[in-house]
C-alpha cells in the first residue's frame, strides 16, 4: 500500500497553489476511517473532499498544511521561519529521538507553521499549529516563530489569524517552554495595543499552556465544533476531584455556554467567516 502523500501535501505544490486531489484519490481509495461518533466508515479521499469532516459533522483532526490549503487563497501563502528547528537544549532524555520521529512523521520542522497569506482576498499573517508534531506542544521554537509572526504583523499593522492545537507546553524544554507563554503573550499584547486584529480558532485539542496564553488572547475567539479546549487535562481533573466529568465537559460548546468562545464555526464555513471578520476589522469609522 502506498502511503505517500496520504496525510501530507508537498510544501512546494502548496506554495505554488497546486492541488493534488487526483493523486490523493488514487493513493488513498482503499483506506477508510471510522468516525468515532457515528461509526460510519468513509474512504479517506471522501473525507478529504469534505475537509476531514464526517457526514455526521464530526471533525477529524487535520494537519497544518491541509488547513493552510483550505484556508489560504490559492497561491497566496508564503511561509516564514520554516527553517527554525528545535534542539535538545536541556539534554532531556529521549527528546532528540522524539524530535527526529516527529519530523519524519509529519515532514515539518516544528509544531507550528507561520507565514503570510490572503484569506478571501484579505491579507494577514497566520500561524497554524501542527497536531502531528509532538501533539502541537510548545517549546522555544514554537514560541519564537509565533512571537516573530506577531512582531512582524505589528510592524506592518496587519491582522493575525491563528489556529491552535496543542497538548500544552513542551516539558522536554522545561522552564524555557513555560517562558514562551510570557514571550508570545508580550508580542500579542503589543500587537493588540497597536490596534491590530487577532483572531484565534481553537481546534481539537487546545489545552495547557497554549490555552493559558495566546489561544485565549484573541479579539475574537472561534472554535471548531466538538473541539476539546481547556486548561487542565480531563484525566488530571478526574484524579484531582475523584469524580466523573459531565458529558460535553471542555468541548467548544461548553466553552461557548460559559462565555469563553465567541462563535463555533464548522470547517466548511471557516474561510468565509474569517474573511468577513478580517474585512470588518479593516477599520472603524470613529476618530
Amino acid at each position, binding site marked *: 500500500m502506498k502511503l505517500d502523500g496520504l496525510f501530507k501535501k508537498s510544501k512546494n505544490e502548496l506554495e505554488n497553489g497546486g492541488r493534488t486531489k487526483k493523486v490523493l484519490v488514487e493513493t488513498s481509495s482503499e483506506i477508510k476511517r471510522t468516525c468515532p461518533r457515528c461509526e460510519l466508515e468513509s474512504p479517506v479521499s471522501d473525507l478529504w473532499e469534505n475537509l476531514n469532516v464526517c457526514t455526521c459533522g464530526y471533525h477529524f483532526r487535520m494537519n497544518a498544511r491541509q488547513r493552510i490549503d483550505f484556508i489560504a487563497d490559492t497561491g497566496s501563502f508564503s511561509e516564514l521561519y520554516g527553517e*527554525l528547528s528545535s534542539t535538545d*537544549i*536541556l539534554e*532531556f*532524555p*529521549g527528546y532528540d529521538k522524539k524530535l527526529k520521529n516527529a519530523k519524519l512523521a509529519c515532514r515539518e520542522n516544528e509544531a507550528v507553521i507561520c507565514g503570510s497569506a490572503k484569506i478571501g482576498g484579505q491579507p494577514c499573517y497566520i500561524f497554524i499549529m501542527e497536531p502531528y508534531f509532538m501533539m502541537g506542544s510548545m*517549546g*522555544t*521554537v514554537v*514560541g*519564537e516563530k509565533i*512571537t516573530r509572526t506577531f512582531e512582524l504583523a505589528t510592524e506592518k499593522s496587519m491582522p493575525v489569524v491563528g489556529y491552535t492545537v496543542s497538548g500544552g*507546553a513542551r*516539558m522536554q*524544554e*522545561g*522552564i*524555557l*517552554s*513555560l*517562558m*514562551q*507563554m*510570557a*514571550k508570545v*503573550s*508580550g*508580542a*500579542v*499584547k*503589543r500587537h493588540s*495595543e497597536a490596534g491590530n486584529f487577532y483572531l484565534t480558532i481553537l481546534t481539537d485539542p487546545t489545552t*495547557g*499552556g497554549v*490555552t*493559558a*496564553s*495566546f*489561544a*485565549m*488572547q484573541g479579539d475574537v475567539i472561534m472554535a471548531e465544533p466538538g473541539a476539546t*479546549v*481547556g*486548561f*487542565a487535562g480531563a484525566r*488530571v*481533573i478526574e484524579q*484531582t*476531584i475523584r*469524580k466523573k*466529568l*459531565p458529558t460535553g*465537559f*471542555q468541548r467548544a460548546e*461548553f466553552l461557548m455556554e*460559559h*462565555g*469563553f468562545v465567541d462563535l463555533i464555526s464548522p470547517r466548511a464555513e471557516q474561510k468565509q467567516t474569517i474573511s468577513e471578520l478580517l474585512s470588518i476589522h479593516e477599520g472603524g469609522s470613529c476618530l
Partner: protein
Amino acid sequence: MSRAYEKVQAARARGRTTGQKYIREIFTDFIELHGDRRFADDPAVLAGIARLRGVPVTVIALEKGVDTKEKVRRNFGAPNPEGYRKALRLMKQAEKFKRPIVCFVDTAGAFCGIGAEERGQGQAIAENIGEMMSLKVPVISIVIGEGGSGGALALAVANQVWMLENSIYSVISPEGCASILWSDAKRVKEAADCLKLTAVDMEALGVVERVFPEKRSSEEVFQMIEDALYTTITELSEKTSEQLTNERYDRFRKFGAI
C-alpha cells in the same frame, strides 16, 4: 538521592514559611483586600496594600496556609480563576496609584476542577500574563516555595524574578512528567533531575535574577529580601513606564530567541 528531588521536597515541606509570614515580616501596615468583583474571593490568593519602609506597595501572595484547617480553606494554595482575577484587579489598582507590585509565588499549580474550567482557568491565566506585560509600574516576583507551571507564571511576569534557594520552578510537576513520559509516577526523582527545576538551574538559564540562600536564620532571610526589594524598587521607580514595560518585554523575549 537526587539533588533536584531534595529541593522538590524542601519546597513542599510541611512547616515551610508561606507568603503571609513574608508579608508580616517584610512590610508594615498591610491591609488585605478581597474579591475579584466578578464572582468570589479566592483564599488561595492573599493580597492587599502595604508599606515597604514607608513606600506604598501592592503585595500579592499565593498562600498555601499553615495549619490543616487553613490549608483546606486556602485550597492548598491552588487558585481558581477568581484568585487570578483578584490579583489582576489589584495589579491594575496598583498601576492606577503608581504603586510597585511585589508577588510571592508558592503553588503546586492552578486548581484543576470542574468549576475552575467552567469559569475559564486558562483565560484567567492568559489575561494575567498579557496584562502583566504592560503594567506601567515595577513588578517583582519571588518564588518562595513551589513555582508550579502556568499557575505560577500568572504572577511572575515581572521586571525581576527572584527565588529562594530551596524553592523550585517548573513547567510541570515531576510526578506529572514521570507519568506522562514513562507512565510511571515512581520515576519522579529522575523526572525532577531532567526538568532542571532548581534555583541553581533557574539562575543558569537566566530565568531568575537572584537566589536567596536559606542557610541562615529566617530573620536574616526576611532582612535580605527586604533590603533587596527596597533597593530594587527604588532603582526601578526612577524608570519611565515605557522603560519598565520595554525591559519586561525584553526580559521574556530573550528566552529561546534564535
